[in-house]
C-alpha cells in the first residue's frame, strides 16, 4: 500500500461554485492545497502538486470528505489544459515516469493535469479489500481458478461472487459511502478541480475505463469540456449491457482477425473460419489437463476464449494453424499456447484497490443490474463468461451506485471527439469507435496498427497534438499504419 503524501503547504483556489448546466445541483467544490509531489516521477518532471479536498457526496458538501492527489505539469501553450484519466477503473499514472513524459509530449505544450481517483491507493480513504481478487481475477491471474479449476462452472463462479460479498461487507463496516465511488462521483471531482485550478474549459483524454469516464465527464459538464480523446474506451453503456452480447462482440473481433487465413494451408491443414467454434467444442468435449505442482488446471473452450481475450495474439496466422489442428484432433501445439503456470500467484495488489474497482464497475450500473438468477443462467449458457469481465458478479455487490437512471445511456454530445484504438484490442477496439461515432456531430477515429489495448506512444501523441490544435479539422493519420 502506498503512502499518502504529506501535506506541506496550503494553496487555496476556491472559486465560486456554479452548477454546470447539465449536472444536477450537486455542490462541486474542491479545496486545493499545495503539497509535496507524491511520486518521484512527478518530482522529476517538476510538477506542481496539490491535494484536493472534496465532499464524498457532492450533494452533501458538509459531510464526509475525500482527498486525492493532483499534479499540474505546466506548459507554455496558453490553450486549455489536458486532463488525463487512467483506466482499470481506478488505476494511477502518477508513478510512471515514461508514461507521464509521453502524455506531456501529447499535450503539445498545454498544461497537463494528472490526478488519482477518489478511493485509489494514494487517496484518502483508499477503498481496500482483501488482496485475493488478484488470484481470482481472470485479468490478473492467467490461471485464475475461476476459469481453470476442475469444479463445474457455478462452483467456480461462486468463488468470485463470495469475494464480491465479502469485500462489500468489509467496505460497509468501514463506514465508507461507496455508492459515490464511480464515474459519476469522479466526474464531479474533476469538475471541482477544474474550477479550483481556474481553468474555464479543459480537454479530456482517457484510456480504457478512463476513456469511458471522460464521456461521463462531458455528459454531465458539457460546457466545461472543449474536446474529448477516448483511447481504447470502455464506456459504461457498453460494459453494462448483458455480458453475453459483449462476449460475442469480442468473438467477432477474433473472427475478423482470422478471416484473412481462410482457405490457406497451414501446417498441413486448410484453415476454416468454423475452426474457432470447432476447436472450442473439441476442448469442451475433452479439456486439456495441465498439472502444476498440487494444482490441476483444466483448459477447456472457456479457457481458449479467456486466453484470446486477455492475451490478444500477435500472430493470428499461428492461431489459425493452432485452431485448425485442435479442430482436427491434434493438440501438440496447445501446451505452448497455454504457457507454463508459474505456481499459484499469491494475493497481490491490483492497479486499483479492489474495493474501489468493484464499487466503480458495479456502482455505475446504478439500479440497472441483472439479477443473480439471470446471471447464473447466463453463466450456465456460456461458461466462457467466467474468463471475460469481472463485472459479471455485480449482482452480488449489494449496493447500488448513486447515479442517475440515464447514466448508462449513450450520451448525446456536441463536442469534438477523437477515438484512438488499437488494431489488436479485443475489448475496446474499432467496435468502440463505432459505438462512439454517433454520439457527437464531429467524431474522428484512428486505429493504430499492431497495437492492442494500450495505445500510448508516439503515434498516439502525434494524433492527440494535431487534434488539440484544431479538434474540428481532419487529422493526418499516416502514423497509424506504420
Amino acid at each position, binding site marked *: 500500500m502506498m503512502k499518502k503524501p504529506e501535506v506541506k503547504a496550503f494553496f487555496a483556489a476556491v472559486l465560486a461554485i456554479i452548477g454546470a448546466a447539465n449536472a444536477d445541483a450537486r455542490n462541486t467544490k474542491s479545496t486545493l492545497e499545495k503539497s509535496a509531489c507524491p511520486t518521484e516521477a512527478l518530482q522529476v518532471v517538476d510538477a506542481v502538486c496539490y491535494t484536493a479536498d472534496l465532499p464524498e457526496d457532492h450533494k452533501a458538501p458538509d459531510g464526509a470528505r475525500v482527498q486525492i492527489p493532483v499534479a499540474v505539469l505546466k506548459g507554455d501553450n496558453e490553450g486549455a489544459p489536458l486532463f488525463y484519466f487512467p483506466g482499470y477503473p481506478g488505476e494511477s499514472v502518477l508513478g510512471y515516469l515514461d508514461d507521464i513524459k509521453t502524455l506531456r509530449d501529447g499535450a503539445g505544450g498545454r498544461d497537463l493535469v494528472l490526478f488519482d481517483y477518489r478511493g485509489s491507493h494514494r487517496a484518502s480513504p483508499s477503498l481496500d479489500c482483501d488482496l485475493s481478487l488478484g488470484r481470482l481475477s481472470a485479468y490478473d491471474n492467467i490461471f485464475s481458478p475461476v476459469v481453470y479449476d476442475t469444479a463445474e462452472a457455478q462452483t467456480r463462479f461462486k468463488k468470485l461472487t463470495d469475494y464480491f460479498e465479502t469485500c462489500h461487507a468489509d467496505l460497509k463496516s468501514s463506514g465508507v459511502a461507496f455508492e459515490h465511488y464511480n464515474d459519476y462521483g469522479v466526474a464531479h471531482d474533476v469538475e471541482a478541480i477544474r474550477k479550483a485550478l481556474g481553468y474555464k474549459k479543459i480537454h479530456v483524454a482517457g484510456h480504457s475505463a478512463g476513456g469511458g469516464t471522460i464521456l461521463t465527464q462531458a455528459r454531465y459538464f458539457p460546457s466545461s469540456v472543449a474536446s474529448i480523446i477516448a483511447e481504447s474506451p470502455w464506456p459504461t*453503456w457498453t460494459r*453494462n*449491457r*448483458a455480458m*453475453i*452480447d459483449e462476449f*460475442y*462482440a469480442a*468473438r*467477432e473481433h477474433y*473472427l*475478423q*482477425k482470422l*478471416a*484473412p*487465413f*481462410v*482457405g*490457406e494451408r497451414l501446417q498441413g491443414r*486448410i484453415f*476454416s*473460419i*468454423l475452426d*474457432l*467454434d*470447432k476447436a472450442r*467444442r473439441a476442448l469442451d468435449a475433452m479439456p486439456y489437463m495441465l498439472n502444476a505442482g498440487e494444482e490441476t488446471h483444466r483448459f477447456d473452450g472457456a479457457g481458449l476464449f479467456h486466453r484470446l481475450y486477455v492475451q490478444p495474439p500477435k500472430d493470428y496466422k499461428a492461431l489459425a494453424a493452432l485452431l485448425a489442428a485442435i479442430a482436427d484432433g491434434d493438440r501438440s501445439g496447445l501446451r505452448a499456447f497455454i504457457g507454463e503456470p508459474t505456481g499459484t500467484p499469491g494475493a497481490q495488489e491490483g492497479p486499483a484497490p479492489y474495493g474501489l474497482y468493484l464499487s466503480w464497475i458495479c456502482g455505475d450500473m446504478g*439500479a*440497472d443490474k*441483472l439479477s443473480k438468477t*439471470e446471471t447464473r443462467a447466463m453463466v450456465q*449458457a456460456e461458461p466462457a463468461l467466467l474468463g471475460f469481465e469481472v463485472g459479471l458478479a455485480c449482482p452480488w455487490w449489494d449496493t447500488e451506485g448513486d447515479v*442517475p*437512471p*440515464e*447514466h*448508462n*445511456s*449513450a450520451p*448525446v454530445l456536441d463536442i469534438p471527439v477523437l477515438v484512438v484504438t488499437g488494431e489488436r484490442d479485443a475489448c475496446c477496439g*474499432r*467496435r468502440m469507435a*463505432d*459505438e462512439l461515432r454517433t454520439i457527437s456531430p464531429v467524431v474522428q477515429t484512428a486505429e493504430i496498427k499492431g497495437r492492442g489495448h494500450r495505445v500510448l506512444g508516439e503515434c498516439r501523441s502525434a494524433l492527440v497534438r494535431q487534434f488539440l490544435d484544431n479538434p474540428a479539422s481532419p487529422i493526418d493519420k499516416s502514423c497509424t499504419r506504420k
Partner: protein
Amino acid sequence: MSAMFSRIAASAVALTLMSGAFLSSVAHARPAKATLEASVCPTDALRALEAKCYTADLPEDHDAPRGKRISVPVAVLKGDKKAAPLFFFPGGPGSSALDREERLRVLKDGADGRDLVVFAYRGGRGAAPELDCDPSYRRLSAYYRKFTPIVHGPGSPVERLAQIGAYYEACHQRLKEQGVDIAQYTEYNIAFDIDAIRKALGYKAIHVAGHSAGGGAVLTQARLFPEAVASVIAEAPWPVWTRNRAPIDELAPSRILYTRLLSPYIGQRFGEHTFSAFDLDRAQDVLDAEPVVLTFGSQTIRFDGAALMHRLYVDLPQDLEGLAGLLTSVANGDRSGLEAFIGVPNSVPIEQGDTPWGLYLSIVCGDMGADKLTKTEIIAMVEKEPALLGFEPTLACPWWETSGDVPASQNRPPSLKMPVLVITGERDTCCGRRVADELRLVSPSVQTADLAGRGHSTFGGCRNTLVRQFLDNPAKPLDKSCTQK
C-alpha cells in the same frame, strides 16, 4: 480514373467474341468465354428503356468449355459517356432487376451517362436453365412470411429445423434429377460468367456495383478479376466471408446493433418503467417463458423470444423509442402493446418470384464449398439458440448435399487494390457498416458511407449522389453530406 474501353458495333446482330485466354493472377486458369447473340429484350422494363439485349451463351462448368452450355439474358442501357461501364449485381442471391423499370431508372441515373449493364445470373429468371424449386419456399422463409411456421411453430425448434432441412433436400433432389450440375451455380462461377460477358461486350475494364448478396458478388468479381475491375461499389453487402461463418456468430452482431440503437433510451421513463440495457434480453426471456399465442383463421402462431429476434431482424421498427417502451413493458410483465407489435399475417402468394429457389440455395450453400458445419453441429446450435430459425437461410446448408465447386479461399475477405465504396444503412440489421469495417481490414482503399435512418435498402437519391461522385473520381474522398439527411 480513365478506363480504356471499346464498344461493340451498334449494328451487331450476332456477335461472337472469342477472347484469348486471359490468365488473371488471381482467378485460376479457366477460359472465360461467352458468345453473345442480340435478342429481343425479355421484359417490358428493358424495352421501355430502349436497352440493347443479348443472350449470353456460357459453359455450365468453366473448366469444361466443351461441355454443357447455359444462357443468361444481358442488357446494355447505352450512355453517352465514353468511360468504363457500370455492371449492376442484384441481391437475393439469385434475383434479377430486369423487370423492374423504376429500379433500372434509378440505376441508370446513378451510372451518370455511362453504359449500364444488367443481367440475370446463371440459373436465374430468364436464364436457361432456371433453377426453380417448389414455390412453397416463400411460405417457409423467415424473410417473406411474417408468421412462418419455422419461427412460429408448431413443433420444437429442432422439428422446425427439420422442416426447412426437408425443403432443402427436396429442392436439391429435384435439381439433380433435372441434370443440373448444382456445384457450378455459385457466386464464384458467376464471376467467370460476368468476366466472359465483359470481354464479349468489348469492355476493357468495368465498374461493378451490387446490393446485398450482389454487394458480396462484386467483391468476389474484383478479387478474381482485379485487372478488369476499375472500381467497386458494394451496397449493404452480404459477402461470403461473413455469411458463411457459424450462424450463432452472425446473429450476435445484429443483437449488438439493436442494443446500440436502443442505448440512447437507457434510463428513460416509459409509464411506470425505466428502460434498461437488459430489457431486450429480459423481454426475450419473458416471451420464451410464456409465449403469446394468437390464432388467425386456421393458423395458430406462437410468438416467443425467437420470434421477437426474428421480427427485429427482418423488420426493425422505425420508431426505436417506441420499441424501447415496448421492451421495457414486456420485460416488466405488461404485454398490452404486444398484439399491435406482432400484427396480422401478411399475404404470401405461392408463386414463382424473381428468384428461383433452387438457384438461391445453390448460391447460399454452394459458396461454402466443402467448408460447412455438420447437421449435428447445426442442431446443437439451434437447441442453444432457437432464434437462429428466424435468421438466415445458411443455417440449413448441411441439408444441401452438394458442395459448390469453389476453392477454399472463396470465403476469405478480399485484399483489393482498386477503389472501393461501401454504402450501408445505419439501421441495417444484416449488412451495415460492420461489413465495411471488416473489408477495410484487408482492403485499404475502401471509402464508406453510412446512410442515416436507412436499413438494408440503400437505393435512392443519396446513393446515386455518392455513386456518381465516386465513378467520376474513385480515388477522391467523397462529399458524404447527403448521408446525414
